[in-house]
Structure formats: C-alpha cells, structure tokens
C-alpha cells in the first residue's frame, strides 16, 4: 500500500507507529506535495508528535495563565488526538468496513471531505469535525513554520538584509484596480496565444 511507503526511522514520542503513520498521512492530505513540497517532506508529523508529546498546545481555546493551565491544555490535546484518530477509524469502519489507512484514496478523501466542507457536514460527525479542525491547525502551523512552508508562500523575511524597503511595486497602478491574478493571467495569455 502506498501508505506504507516512507514510514521512516523516526520513533514517535507520543503516538504509536500506526497512529503516527495516520497523522503523517492526514497531514499530507491537508497540505500535499504539488508544485511545492508537502507536509511529509516538511516533517510536519514529527512536529505534531513533538508538540503533543511535550504538551505544548498549538490550538487551544483555553486561557493560559499558569503552567497548570498549559499542562491542562496539553493533556487535552493529547486526549483529543487519540480520540480523534479513533473516531476516524470508527467512521471508516462504519462507512467502508476497514481501517482508515486501508481505505482507497477516494474513500479517505470522501471521509475527510465530510469533515472539512460545510456543504458536506452531517449532524453525526461533530466530534470528527472538531478533530479535523485541530489536525488542520497543527498541520498548518507545522508546515508554515518550516523553511519549506515559508518558501512555498514566498515569505520575504527569509531574506534578512534588504538595502531599503521597496514598498508597493505597482507604481503604474497605485489604486490596485487592474491587477491580475498570475494564475488567471497566464491562462488568458495561453488562450490569447492559441
């Protein structure tokens, strides 16, 4: 199975090897490799495992006023991760009669879509949706705090010395009323050429 590929030599601190594989797979589903590397290459699962193991809350609604608050939030994240991964497997069993990781990519996609898109929400999936939101929070944080992630959006601060601040580059269109999205402009250019 493709999901078995690249389990790697990393020994998870918190998750079991099976759980870790699932976290890594979900992270890659959220931020896949396309024209830039995905969550897997950016080591997002290792980051999640490290943060969850050390009870460092990434996404929490708690007001943290003390070390006890921080630990409570960290414990909550641990429990929510374990319960959430179980929920996903229970859901895949009831929908597809097998573990999530044994489902086809189409099945996995349809399961996650029900948790990720409002139009596909079902009344019985509330806890699954809450888990998916948390998983997405950890994944986005884990990805966009790596060099790979920051490069993928072109974070200008990766360069640390600038001769001057360039300011707005659209001197000929200061109202920004006629800017074209590169994606749409390139496709229209193509049509134009054809």
């Amino acid at each position: 199975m493709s999901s078995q590929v690249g389990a790697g030599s990393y020994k998870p601190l918190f998750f079991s090897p099976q759980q870790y594989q699932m976290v890594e797979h979900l992270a890659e589903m959220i931020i896949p490799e396309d024209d830039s590397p995905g969550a897997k290459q950016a080591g997002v699962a290792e980051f999640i495992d490290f943060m969850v193991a050390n009870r460092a809350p990434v996404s929490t609604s708690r007001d943290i006023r003390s070390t006890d608050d921080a630990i409570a939030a960290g414990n909550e994240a641990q429990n929510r991760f374990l319960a959430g991964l179980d929920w996903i497997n229970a859901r895949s069993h009831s929908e597809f009669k097998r573990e999530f990781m044994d489902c086809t990519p189409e099945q996995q996609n349809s399961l996650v879509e029900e948790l990720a898109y409002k139009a596909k929400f079902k009344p019985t999936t509330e806890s699954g949706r809450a888990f998916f939101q948390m998983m997405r929070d950890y994944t986005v944080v884990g990805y966009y705090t790596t060099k790979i992630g920051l490069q993928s959006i072109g974070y200008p601060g990766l360069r640390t010395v600038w001769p001057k601040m360039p300011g707005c580059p659209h001197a000929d269109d200061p109202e920004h009323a006629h800017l074209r999205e590169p994606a749409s402009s390139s496709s229209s250019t193509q049509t134009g050429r054809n």
Partner: protein
Amino acid sequence: MSNDLYDVLVVGTGAGGGTAMKILCEAGLQVCALNSGPRIDPGKDYRGHRQVYDLQYRGYGDPLRLKGKAHQEPYSVEESEYSEGRDLFEHDVAYSNAPGTDWYWKRCKATGGKANFWGRSSARFGDIDFKAADLDGFGENWPVDYAEISPWFSKAERYMGVASTVQNRPSNPDGEYLPPIPWRCIDYIIQKGAEKIGVPYLPDRCAQLTVPHHGHPNCHYCGNCSRGCDVGSFFSPTWFTIPDAEATKNLTLLTNALVRSVIVDENGMAKGVAYVDRVTRKELELYAKVVVLAASCVETAHIMLNSKTRHWPTGIANSSGQLGHNLCEHLYGTPGYGYLPQLLGQPATPDNIADSTVAWMPRWQNLKNPREEKFIRGYSVYMGGGCGEFPGYYGQIEGFGSRFKRDIKRYYATSIGALIQAPTLPSPTNYLDIDPEKKDMFGIPQLRFHFQWGPNELLMWEHSKQVMIDLFSAMGGELWGADVEPNRPGTSLHETGVCRFGNDPKTSVTNKWAQTHEVPNLYICDASIFPSCTDKTTTMPIIAFTMRTCDRMLENFKKGVHKRA
C-alpha cells in the same frame, strides 16, 4: 559599595531612566542606576536573524518554562521563545488584581526594559491632549502646554530618529523627521477607502532609522524589530542611552537590584533607596542627593506606596492622596479584520520587512466640536497586514488539499487587520494600592490593580467597529470579522497616571517639572506623571518629558537647590 554616596540614583533603565542617566552623566554628575533584572545582551537575548524553524517549539515555547515561578502567566508578543533561556521578564514578583479586575501586567526586567521591544510609534501630543479639559470639560488640563514642551519633543526626535512626513494637522503636530517608510500596497488601498469615509490615513511617526543617524546604521529590514534590533537601527536604551551614559564613565549600573522603597532623612526628604540584590538576596541601601524614579509607571507608584515612614504614612510625597490614582491605559483590540480582493494571487511583496505600522489613522473624532460624538476625546487606529511570517488567515479558508494550499498562497498578500488605540478616562475606580496581605518572595508587599473599562472607551470601541465596516466597504475589501471583546487591560503597555503632575499640590503628586511637590529631591521620569492618556503612544513623550525634567534638575544643581555629593 552600599556606603557610596552618589549625586543621583536612577531607578529603572528603560525609556525614561535610560534617558535620565544619559543626560545627568553627560552633565558630569555621578549617577548610579539600579535595574531590577539582568543586563540584556543583544547578541544572545534578541531574536537576531533566527527563523521560527530554528526554535524547538516554533515560537510557542516550552509549556513548562515558568513552572514554580510566582507569576506564571506568559507575556505574549514581547516575551517569546526567541528570548527564552535567560530571565529577562518578571515572573518572580507577583501582583494581585482586585475582584472584577483582570490587569495583564507585562514586565521586562532586563536593562532597557520594554523599550528593547517597543512598537516605535512616536507621535507628539498636542494641545488637543494637554488642554482637553478646556475643550470638553472633563478632568483637568496638563500643567504643560504644547508651546512649552515642543522644543523637548524636537530634542527627543532628533536624538531618537523618527521617520514620518509633515502633515499639517494640529491634533497630531508635526515634528522633525527622517524620510518616511515607503508605503505598501495595502496602505494605498486603505488610504483610498479611508478618504472616501473621511478618515485620515497617513504615515505614522515611526522611530525607525530609514537613514543612518548619529552613528546608528539605517534599518536593514529583517523584520524582527519587535524581538529587539541586532544593530540598533531604532531607538532603544540598549543601543542609545545606556552606551551614551557609560561612555562618560560617570555611571555605575547595578543589575538585579530590585528597589523596595525610597528611604528618607530626618526631615522626610529622599536620602536613597532600599533594594534587594536578587542574586545574593541581601538587603542593601544606596544613598544620593537626588532620587529619580523611572521604574515604568505602575512600578514607580508601587515603590512610592511602599515608601511609608512616620513622615509619609500613606507613601512618600502622597499628602494629596493622588498616588496610585488616575490609572489610565489604552484600550486595545481588533475592531475589524479581513482581506483585500484586489491583491488576491499577487506574488509576495516584502511589505512587512519594516515590521512597523508604516501608516495609521490618527485621531479624527471630535476635532471640530469636542462633543460631536457620543464619546469625548478620540482614538487612533493602526492597520497591519500583508505578507507576514505566518498565514494566520488560514482559518478563513475552508477545506484541505492542493486547493487549500493554493488558497493560502493566493490570499497571502491580502489579509489586513485593525488595532484600535483608545484612551481611557481617569476614573476614581481605576487605581492602584498595596495588597493588604500578599507579599512577594522578597517580602515586598504586592501591588494591587483596580481597573475596568469605562463607558467612554467602550463607546469608542463600538464606534471603531462601525468605522471598519464602512472602511472595508469603501476600499473594496471583505470583512471577515472583529474581536467581540477588547484585549485585557494592560495589553497595550501604555499605562499612565498614578503619580500625576499638576500645579496644585493638593491634587497632584509632582509639579510640572515632575519633581514631587513635597520631596523636592525626588523626581519621576516615566508615564506615571501623565494625568491622562491620549490617542498617542507614550514612549517618545516619556523621553521628551524626561529630557525636560533633567534639564530642570541640572539647573537646580547649578542654583544650589541640590548639592553635589
């Protein structure tokens, strides 16, 4: 050491204390400065050019780092994983909040204090601020007007280096400026929208060196300012006043010296300070002819309230009973955030590498008629956004997968948010006192806050939310939302009051020179003298008023009012 006698003791080395010791040392006085924490080392304690992926917890910090500390609440923004490892922030000295109060007291105890990491907005106060009571009938005027303080604003600006433009608005007086920071795409778009709804959007007064300034290099735009500048391209005591004072060889700088109280002679005049050495836990005293308190507003009042003797049963120089009163603060919060569809899909532009507000909406309410709005006085708004260090807007984008990832990139240049800076009005229910029971680990009675937002500032908060709805519509933006509640009191770090200055000793703690009415050799050099908060930030005015106070003190030395040690 403890038997040494100095000309002046300066308590605190931040914006006010640092400036005081520079001026006094340069005038030839022997000065001893006491700083409650360690000496900051920019090479180790600032962010430098470290990236977030260089940090083990990616900026979130070790959740156990404050375990066992007396005050375990982390200080967002200022304190971060970049400055973890050394004890730069105050977590040993606890404070208390009265029932119903939720004050968030963030303290940097290292040399230079919060001014190592400040936001750099440096607008002048104007007569609209100093004479607000004349205009709207609330409270009292300041004892100083614009004509009187203006030369010191110029002095402060010349020394610090402030980038801005001449704008010809009396409510936001112009100063002496370095070339402004260039505008970003978002600034042009916001400005157009603001114009349509009659709101000014202008370059902020930003203490950031757009050109080299008195030996300080110009900014190299790494974007890390708020974690400390590695080369001193904006004003901070660490790069400016402390080295200047040390160059005179007239400065003795004591670190980890936590001042407990001002000690007095047989006549009740200041004789020195009592402090505890945090490292040895020894109780020590130092003596001087003049004492300057610049411990950062509320801590100055804390020290004075704890300076109780037979002469001063409620705290030193407090016959007026005003010590600890008139606590004001800026209400902070996000009255609107969203995005600019005009910029969707634009490639990342380096528009946040100045890490500064670049432009702002200086107060525009109640200018023509002081009672035009439902509230009196007025507020300012800072707009932020553009290509930042983290795509915090991702929560607005639904889904997962390649499309989600592409959208995160597509929205990268578009997201913007507002920050309101609204002054509170002095209120008899907003004050400080000494907790009757609680003491900190050094046995010092704790400071207790009594503070709640009042109706005037909450009206401004609601007003600003409507302005954001109008602005987003006028500039073709989409509003995602707004904070329901403002931030907690204390968040802005702009507390003022508690030792207000004035001409009448019955209603103020110090005279117009920031010299306490009753103890002429005790001066105050921080925002605690400001009788009211304005819509502008406090740091540059603290420096200007400190320069003026020190000039006055030097005259008093010359005239023999104060004797040399």
